[in-house]
């Protein structure tokens, strides 16, 4: 390019840029002064913020914890014993059979990927619109969703332990009875499926005992 055309081009493009910029001086500003007009902050649809777990519906299936890429959900469950009726979930009416003794989400680790939300069979773990939950201490960001206290959890654990111990005693007795009733055949000849399911699996043993 020529010397003079360079100069004119340089000046004219500079002027063009300056006119574009100066037109913004009186424009409406886009800045939002965050906390002030509170109701202005309408989050977009499907915004991902703090998680919430509706414990009434959680069946303790652990699917969310396994889906989590950062392992920030910790779930501990205790199997219920047959005489306990945990009811059904409000959604999809799923039968609940596990006591959820611990359900912690560490929101400090959470990356808000929402991967835990999709697998939940009862749709009880959800993203909410709460985004103002900063804490001075990191421990405070671990949310405890489990509804039962330590004593209650211990009670259920104890119940389960007792029940299993009794079931074991029962099984041993049944095995002894079987051995006494059939002395001729060697135990190895019995087909593996021969023990009654009720005795082999405590889960199949639905009927009330004791």
């Amino acid at each position, binding site marked *: 390019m020529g010397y003079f055309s360079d100069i004119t081009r340089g000046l004219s493009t500079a002027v063009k840029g*300056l006119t574009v910029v*100066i037109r*913004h001086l009186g424009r409406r*500003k886009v800045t939002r002064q965050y906390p002030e007009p509170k109701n202005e902050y309408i989050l977009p649809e499907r915004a991902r913020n703090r998680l919430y777990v509706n414990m009434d519906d959680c069946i303790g299936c652990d699917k969310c914890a396994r889906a989590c890429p950062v392992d920030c959900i910790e779930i501990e469950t205790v199997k219920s014993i047959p005489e306990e009726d945990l009811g059904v979930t409000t959604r999809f009416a799923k039968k609940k059979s596990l006591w959820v003794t611990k359900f912690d989400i560490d929101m400090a680790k959470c990356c808000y990927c929402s991967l835990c939300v999709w697998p939940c069979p009862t749709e009880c773990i959800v993203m909410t619109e709460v985004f103002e939950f900063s804490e001075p201490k990191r421990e405070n960001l671990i949310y405890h969703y489990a509804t039962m206290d330590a004593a209650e959890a211990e009670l259920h654990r104890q119940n389960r332990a007792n029940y299993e111990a009794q079931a074991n005693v029962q099984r041993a007795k049944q095995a002894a009875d079987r051995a006494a009733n059939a002395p001729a055949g060697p135990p190895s000849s019995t087909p593996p499926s021969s023990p009654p399911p009720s005795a082999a699996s405590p889960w199949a043993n639905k009927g009330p005992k004791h």
Partner: protein
Amino acid sequence: MTAIYQALYEFISRFFSPSIITLVVTTLVYAAIPLVFILVYGLVAILGEMKISAWLQDRLGPMRTGPKGILQPIADILKLLQKEDTTPRAADRPLYRLAPWVAFIGSYAAFAALPFSVAYIGARLNTGIFYILSMGSLVVVSILLAGWGSDNKYSMIGAMRSVAQIISYEIPVALAVITVVVIAGSMDLQTITDLQAGGINNWFLLGGPKHLEGFGGSTNFVLVPVMLVAFAIYFIGSLAETNRVPFDVPEAESELVAGYHTEYSGMKFALFFLSEYASMFAVGSVASILFLGGWQSPLGDTMNGPAMGFLWFILKGLSFVFAQIWIRWTLPRFRVDQVMRICWKVLIPFGLTAVAAASVIAVAIQ
């Protein structure tokens, strides 16, 4: 109160003669006016830079400190004062400490020869504009001191670039100034301002005073393009002299951290900062004196006078500061080679042409 002053005066006059006391007091008062002005203007300019840059980008800028954020510069100054004043271990201490003061003195000293109004000029030198240009060069010394004293490669590169740039750009700036000086026949800024009395029509940018002998008519017609070129050269050159965008290669954040003042913190940094803003106003007001009639009212005799002179002068200076801010938030930075090319291949040839043309016209006028 009067009694205290009386006693003080009598005490001092035992050692000094009254004329010396008057001289010292007058000097101090005269010196304090620009200093106070620089400090107040510094606050305004910092806020202006923040607010204007925000507005140009559709933002709001600082909004929380005071109503609409107008106390933000004060908060910033207080923060700077509290900052730890660090010195790099390998720094050349005396030079490192000296640099910010030299920078500020250079900028402040330029204000001495600025005619703020018909009633106030710190020192009416018959070589006023020459003095201001040379004080501008003092900044080069401080930048070199800062760059060398910091013992930091970024500071050093920034200082080198800055010195190369400022020394180069002094030539076109001087040429533009000479163009006006040749026509005005004086280097005294007050005289140059006086020549442009009588409204916008008599400003040098628009061909100079029409009422004087020789001016007007065809002379005026020829002078307008010459002055426009000189004005453009002066303005571009002054951007480079104050290291403002698009000529901010010496402090290019993306390449050099902050250039020569990388290592400075606290009050020393504040001095560099203040000196930069003071220089912005100084070059702006020199442009307004040379081309836009200084403290003269654009309306001729209406709203003219000593007090209104102050107002017009500051207003014109601030519009240049505004233009510098506006340019800063619009244009990208030049490369070093482009900076040099613009200076040596464009501004200087044009400047020489303008001086030659002005000289011919000046001869024709006489």
